[in-house]
């Protein structure tokens, strides 16, 4: 019975993937991409990778879908105007894609006899971190440097988006959403949902130490709540020159880095934790990261500054 379900999911994924590539209209392709992400997260649950499933649903489908939707909306005017790529370009792109697909298929179909894995070691030493969720252990203890750099990359991406704004609008606010009348149903939604969402985000961040969840998923929920509030016009998007916003953006990575350097003094080295306080320090970092990730992702989706600062 489970096999029937799995085969069904996989065939749906392949069919929807093909449909996404075939779709002519960018907006349609993006909507199919969101559906694809949600199905993908069900596939991750079937593989018992609940952490990955949550991330796929929240980031792969949710925030990325929204980024792509706004990109598609901005491309609307230019679409159809450009000339079709020439025949040699089509052939080159097609053969390169086929090469990559063949390579991936080869890796999957002809695996090494014993797959290299560090999973038993990771689980055996998990008790030293005080965490119960092995994924959190990998993210914040074994591979903490990767996680730290990931957060810095997010900030760099935001700087990239901001730099797309015009000189006149620099320091201004992103223009998000159309005019919404004050008694609109979207306003009601933006007033009712965020309290629930904030509690949910806090729970997800907190529970990440011992169950699936964590700073990234919690931060994404925070980001979406803030985006809803901004789109409904309940609160305006802040100007990007706001000192408060900039502090919130760097708070998470800065705290992570500070604890990392503290590791030289109180533990074995950079990004090492003393055994007695490992869990407390990791949870502290996760809370700060969730806030920073929430603000970063929301501002990424809000787009470059377009409204000039009021003098």
């Amino acid at each position, binding site marked *: 019975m489970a096999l029937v379900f799995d085969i069904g999911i996989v065939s749906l994924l392949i069919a929807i993937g093909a449909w996404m590539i075939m779709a002519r209209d960018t907006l349609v392709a993006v909507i199919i991409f969101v559906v694809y992400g949600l199905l993908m997260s069900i596939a991750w649950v079937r593989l018992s990778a609940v952490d990955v499933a949550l991330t796929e649903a929240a980031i792969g489908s949710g925030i990325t879908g929204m980024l792509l939707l706004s990109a598609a909306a901005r491309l609307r005017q230019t679409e159809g105007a450009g000339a079709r790529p020439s025949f040699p370009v089509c052939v080159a792109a097609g053969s390169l894609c086929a090469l990559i697909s063949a390579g991936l298929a080869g890796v999957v179909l002809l695996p090494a006899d014993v797959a290299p894995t560090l999973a038993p070691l990771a689980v055996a030493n998990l008790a030293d971190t005080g965490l119960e969720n092995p994924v959190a252990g990998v993210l914040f203890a074994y591979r903490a440097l990767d996680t730290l750099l990931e957060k810095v990359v997010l900030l760099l991406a935001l700087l990239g988006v901001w730099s797309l704004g015009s000189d006149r609008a620099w320091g201004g606010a992103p223009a998000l959403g159309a005019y919404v009348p004050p008694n609109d*149903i*979207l306003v*009601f*939604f933006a007033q*009712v*949902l965020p309290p*629930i969402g904030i509690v949910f985000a806090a729970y997800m961040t907190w529970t990440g130490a011992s169950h699936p969840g964590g700073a990234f998923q919690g931060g994404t929920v925070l980001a979406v709540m803030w985006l809803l509030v901004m789109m409904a016009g309940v609160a305006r998007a802040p100007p990007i020159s706001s000192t408060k916003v900039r502090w919130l953006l760097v708070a998470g990575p800065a705290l992570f880095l500070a604890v990392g350097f503290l590791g030289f003094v109180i533990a074995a080295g950079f990004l090492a934790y003393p055994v007695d306080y490992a869990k407390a320090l990791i949870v502290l970092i996760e809370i700060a990261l969730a806030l920073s990730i929430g603000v970063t992702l929301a501002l990424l989706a809000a787009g470059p500054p377009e409204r000039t600062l009021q003098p």
Partner: protein
Amino acid sequence: MSGLLHAFTILAVSAGVVFFIAGTVGLVRFPDVPTRLHALTKADNVGLGLVVLGLLPYTGGLLGALKLVSVWLLTLLSGAIVTQLIARAVR
């Protein structure tokens, strides 16, 4: 007792699935957006509600049951509002 619970679950979930199928048929067959939305909301609200009701005996405690019920309530809220927004966008 457990046999009775099983029967209850099978009954409720099957009834929920019937609503999902009816909603999907409506989505495919109905002629315009408002009627299609009408069909979809039946699947979301009643169908999911019945599935949640059927699964309640297996949540293993009050907390798990509360989580399932809040999933349903949140779907009701977002479903109702998103349906309104879509209907207004196509009007």
